[in-house]
């Protein structure tokens, strides 16, 4: 699996290259600024890009903007954005093209190597991987408004885990229920959110999107 990596801190960049290589990813290019990132993404068209939000030259949200621009040029280009802090605002911007293949994680999550690598794969496969921090803040919101208000607490929990990028099997393990029960919850969620039957992955993305807009 071919990866483009953008991270300006050499220490972290080398660490990520080492980690990804160890898990059989092929890091085709590692860059340290936004203009090179955009060029690398359009020339290599990688299977997934791992991008730090804050990059030179302005050290603001250049990485995020470059990711959004690249996705405008190459629709659905899978990007996993890493940051020292998470904002719902950014999560929503990343997901707004409804194409899936989006991840948004705290840099801390890298330390949980297995889960991080799973997230990279989920994103590469067109799924979403939202940081639990984003998800938990959403769970704290009262959703009086339709249609999320119609979900049962358990369904909201399942939707939250879906937003984090967990598969049905993983959700079943986490909630100590059978995979079949999770499947029932997910189809109930899709029904309540009015998502027509289609490819399951895409519906998951749309459900997560609805979740973030709640």
């Amino acid at each position: 699996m071919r990866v483009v990596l953008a991270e300006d801190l050499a220490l972290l960049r080398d660490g990520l290259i080492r980690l990804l290589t160890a898990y059989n990813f092929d890091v085709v290019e590692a860059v340290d600024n936004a203009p090179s990132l955009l060029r690398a993404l359009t020339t290599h068209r990688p299977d997934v890009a791992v991008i730090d939000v804050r990059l030179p030259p302005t050290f603001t949200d250049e990485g995020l903007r470059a990711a959004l621009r690249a996705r405008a040029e190459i629709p659905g280009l899978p990007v996993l954005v890493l940051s020292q802090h998470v904002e719902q605002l950014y999560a929503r911007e990343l997901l707004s093209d409804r194409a899936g293949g989006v991840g948004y994680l705290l840099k801390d999550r890298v330390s949980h190597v297995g889960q991080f690598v799973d997230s990279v794969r989920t994103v590469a496969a067109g799924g979403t991987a939202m940081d639990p921090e984003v998800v938990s803040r959403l769970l704290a919101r009262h959703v009086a408004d339709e249609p999320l208000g119609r979900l049962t607490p358990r369904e909201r929990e399942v939707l939250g885990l879906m937003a984090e990028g967990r598969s049905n099997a993983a959700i079943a393990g986490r909630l100590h229920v059978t995979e079949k029960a999770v499947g029932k919850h997910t189809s109930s969620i899709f029904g309540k959110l009015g998502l027509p039957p289609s490819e399951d992955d895409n519906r998951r993305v749309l459900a997560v999107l609805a979740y973030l807009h709640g």
Partner: protein
Amino acid sequence: MGEFGDDLRSGIRRGGVAVVRGLAFPVLGLALGLPLFVVFVLSSAFLALGIGFVLLPLVVVAIRSLATLHRRFAAEWAGLPITSPYRPSPVYSGSAPRRAWQRVRWLLSDPATWRDLLWLLAEVPVGLVLGLLPAVAVAAGVEGIVVPQVLWLLDVLPNGYGFGTVWPIDSARDVAVAVAEGVLLVVIGLLIAPWALWAHARCGRLLLAPTRGSELASRVTQLTRTRTETVDAQAAELRRIERDLHDGAQARLVSLSLSIGMAEDLIGRDPDAARALLVEARQSSVLALSELRDLVAGIHPPVLAERGLDGAVRALAMALPIAVECTVELPGRPAAPVESALYFAASEVLTNVARHSGATTARIELRSTGTHLRLTVTDDGRGGASIGAGTGLRGVERRLSALDGTLALNSPPGGPTVVLLEIPCVLSSPKTSRSSGTA
């Protein structure tokens, strides 16, 4: 006729009100102003006897009340606001006679006291002329309209009675001319009455407004106060950061290196225990990172650095557990201290809304008025909020005042609550960013 009639009626009402208001000047000037001036001179003379130390402050307070009343008249009747020129009172100390001396010295060394005194004298002729002129015109006009007609009808016109240009009146035509002239006089009186109020306010402003020197003096006092507050707040903030780092991230890193060291030691003998220690180390690092993240957010929120006030305020709105409608209209970016102050103020206000108001929806508006940045937060909660009641709004007010900003709160019981924050600010770049949406 309708519209013209309305205009006429409101014009007459405005003129009439102004005529009556103008009468206040000669009345106040003669009944209060002059006597106060005399009493002031007397009590100054009594300073030598000691009793003046008690009398003089009372007289000055009375004079200031009268002057303040006239400042209010100028603002409300003539639309010419006059700021109060008085120096703030000093902090008194020592024995009672010493305090009395300090008080008298404060009052007599304030140039505004002497200017007030001068004004008391000048106000008598100015108030008489400008206050009575419209009233006299109207009264004379009414005489011209009423008296000749009545006398003519009763046929008791005394020989030699006249009005205006007709002297004496001895025909029906003369009466008609007198009435016409009377009407003209009334109209003139009503027309000049608002102008007389304005002219009176202009004259008063010459002596009642602060001099450039006293304006600067009060500005210095205010700057000294806000600077002290800012320095104190900054020091407290640094202490808090130091404590947070010391008890938080630093302690976590120590325990982290301890776990790693023990794992290193155990890895040959007891791999399972070493693994458990490494898991612990990782969790410890996650906690340290999250504490550092909170600390950074408290110093300068990353989203503010990345997106400016526009994005940061919208991110705040989005993080709130209630529905928030957010409108931002900023042509350009404000200076960093202004951005930061407004952001933290908005954060505090929004936290209050979410925690105390019981509101289900809120609205945030951020606009530039050209000279000021204005942030308005409205919620549909239960109202009854106050700046004092442990809401943290006092702190927000302090923070804003360092930048000459202000906070206004309007929260009647039952709501809605409106918080208005303003900071004087000229925006840097002409780039326009405009956005709105619901979070």
